[in-house]
């Protein structure tokens, strides 16, 4: 077998192994510059692998990869289908955008001697998230969940603000509770089926679907995963974690971590437990519907009154997750399509916003000083000094609102379609009304940045152009361009999501 063939046959393993092994290598390098270079190469290689896997799946159907050549269900198998490939592209794309950005941002946000450690943790987090998506083994999924979570706790704690430590600790406690619930759920499923392979598990569950341990497993998994994806009442860890983490971490996590958890939920609901159990026999759809609505309204409402821009958009994330779970609760092709496509659409828009906020944080910092929090009083008149950054946030904000022409609109369109299919017109109203709340908080930024007079303190003359460096602007603007591209040309995103949704909903 030639080298190229061998690489192409091992792509599913390389997708995870590459960042996983790059992490200890970076630790050995001990030079921040070399660490950055290696992380950059690896993140781009990961993106290339994800795209190659996508093409393979597109051309010849799902890929199965047996770890250590142990045949399933005995060995751990990696399983890449359309949905997994879609998520792999999202996660590795975000990483490939975040890493070039990270250098300039980290230089001001993290002490120089921890840059190497930062990249080690970043690579581990990346490989954990990719592993969650790609694995076809329930316990392996839990292990990767822990790999990504543990590295995330450290990444958040890198924040310069001391409250980052508390935020990280809070997330550690909540995340560990979530992980415990997930492992209990997986354990119960193993007890009932005797297998950890997800495909095998789904087949064997057919006989024992309504038994009590399986229902308990469903409950444990639902609560555990909901904690990780920050479903409304379980979202308490998210605002602090996003607010105090370094900018690049916030952007990366906002676009990937919660999204991957939603992916896990979809996998368990539709592929393992099966639609009939989750959506027809239990009152789960109703519960999820109301929690999603609460998230959409309460979190959006709270967001309007935040004084810290990062925290504002963190609450907005909780609300946007509400849209995703709302789509899930419909249990229809259009609803699920909206959920899946919003994983991507929200990921790129929110990623862009947090990347740009990272630029603001540097822009409002006094030279040489630690970057301050982006509170609204510091943002007054900022559009004059950082026109590209501010305009970018407004554009990405349009996608959060769901203005036609942006990716956010596509999602809401399908959500509304799904609501209308069920004849629930009041839900259509609710979706539109919650979008109005998003208008309110985006407008608040516009008003402050564009129409308010800059603060009078002399250290930062108002007329001075103080734009973020290009290495930070270009990645963010790439994501903004993508937000508009996928708002107008939906053949890739909606095409995939629709195909996956049809398979999943029809599959049972």
């Amino acid at each position, binding site marked *: *077998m030639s080298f190229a063939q*061998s690489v192409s046959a*091992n792509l599913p*393993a*390389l997708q995870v*192994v590459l960042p*996983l*092994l790059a*992490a*200890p*290598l970076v*630790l*050995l390098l001990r030079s921040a510059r070399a660490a950055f270079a290696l992380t950059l190469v690896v993140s781009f290689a990961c993106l290339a692998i994800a795209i190659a896997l996508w093409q393979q799946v597109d051309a010849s159907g799902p890929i199965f*990869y*047996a*770890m*250590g*050549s142990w045949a399933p269900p005995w060995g751990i198998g990696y399983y890449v289908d359309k949905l997994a490939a879609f998520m792999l592209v999202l996660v590795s794309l975000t990483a490939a955008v975040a890493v070039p950005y990270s250098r300039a941002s980290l230089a001001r946000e993290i002490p120089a001697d921890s840059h190497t450690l930062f990249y080690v943790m970043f690579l581990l987090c990346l490989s954990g998230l990719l592993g969650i998506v790609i694995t076809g083994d329930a316990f392996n999924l839990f292990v990767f969940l822990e790999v990504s979570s543990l590295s995330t706790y450290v990444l958040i704690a890198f924040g*310069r*603000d*001391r409250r980052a430590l508390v935020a990280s600790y809070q997330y550690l406690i909540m995340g560990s509770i979530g992980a415990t619930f997930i492992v209990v759920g997986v354990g119960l499923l193993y007890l009932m089926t005797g297998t950890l392979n997800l495909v095998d598990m789904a087949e064997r569950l057919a006989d024992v679907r309504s038994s009590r341990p399986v229902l308990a497993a469903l409950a444990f998994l639902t609560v555990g995963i909901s904690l990780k994806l920050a479903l409304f009442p379980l979202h308490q860890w998210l605002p602090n974690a996003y607010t105090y983490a370094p900018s690049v971490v916030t952007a990366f996590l906002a676009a990937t971590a919660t999204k991957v958890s939603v992916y896990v939920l979809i996998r368990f609901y539709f592929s393992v437990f099966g639609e009939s159990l989750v959506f027809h026999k239990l009152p789960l759809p109703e519960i999820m519907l109301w929690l999603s609505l609460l998230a959409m309204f309460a979190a959006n409402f709270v967001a309007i009154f935040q004084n810290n821009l990062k925290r504002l958009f963190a609450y907005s994330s909780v609300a946007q997750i509400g849209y995703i779970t709302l789509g899930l609760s419909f249990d229809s092709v259009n609803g699920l399509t909206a959920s899946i496509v919003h994983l991507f659409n929200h990921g790129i828009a929110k990623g862009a916003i947090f990347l740009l906020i990272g630029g603001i944080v540097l822009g409002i910092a006094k030279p040489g*000083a*630690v970057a*301050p*929090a982006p509170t609204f009083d510091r943002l007054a008149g900022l559009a004059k000094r950082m026109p590209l950054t501010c305009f970018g946030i407004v554009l990405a904000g349009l996608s959060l609102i769901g203005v036609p022409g942006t990716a956010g609109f596509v999602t809401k369109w399908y959500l509304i379609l799904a609501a209308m299919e069920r004849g629930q017109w009041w839900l259509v109203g609710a979706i539109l009304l919650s979008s109005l709340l998003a208008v309110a908080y985006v407008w608040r930024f516009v008003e402050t940045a564009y129409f308010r007079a800059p603060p009078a303190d002399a250290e930062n003359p108002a007329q001075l152009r103080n734009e973020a460096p290009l290495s930070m602007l270009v990645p963010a603007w790439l994501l903004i361009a993508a937000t508009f591209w996928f708002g107008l040309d939906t053949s890739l995103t909606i095409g995939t999501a629709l195909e996956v949704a049809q398979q999943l909903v029809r599959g049972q």
Partner: protein
Amino acid sequence: MNRQLVLRVIAKLMIPFILIFALYVQFHGDFGPGGGFQAGVALAAGVIFYALIFGLARTRRAVPDSLLDGMIAGGVLLYGGVGVAGMLLGGNFLDYFVLDADTVIGQHRGIFWVEAGVGITVSSVMLRIFYLFADRANLTESERDHPEGER
């Protein structure tokens, strides 16, 4: 506790045996109870015992931090390297069957090096954690010298 003669003598007597036992657990893991994780813990316990009796500074001279960092990364790389070797020899990741013409020997070879990687990383991580905790008094002082930004 450096002045306690009994402790010092007992420690010097016992530590070599602890370390040998760790190696036994490591290499016997293929056939009986044991393996890299347990061996790593036992090995680290031997060094921690030394640190308790003879002090952190002397231990750090014997087992320096840089060595530990190298071991932490090296163990993971050894483990992953076995997996990559499987791929290079034409199998899947972590494929031990292809490591030797005889698949049973191949399995043996694979698990031996994987467990070695686990042992190296576990022992060094254990010690690193111990160093971090034992060193906390100094750490807070240096933090006082370079206060973190507070806003």
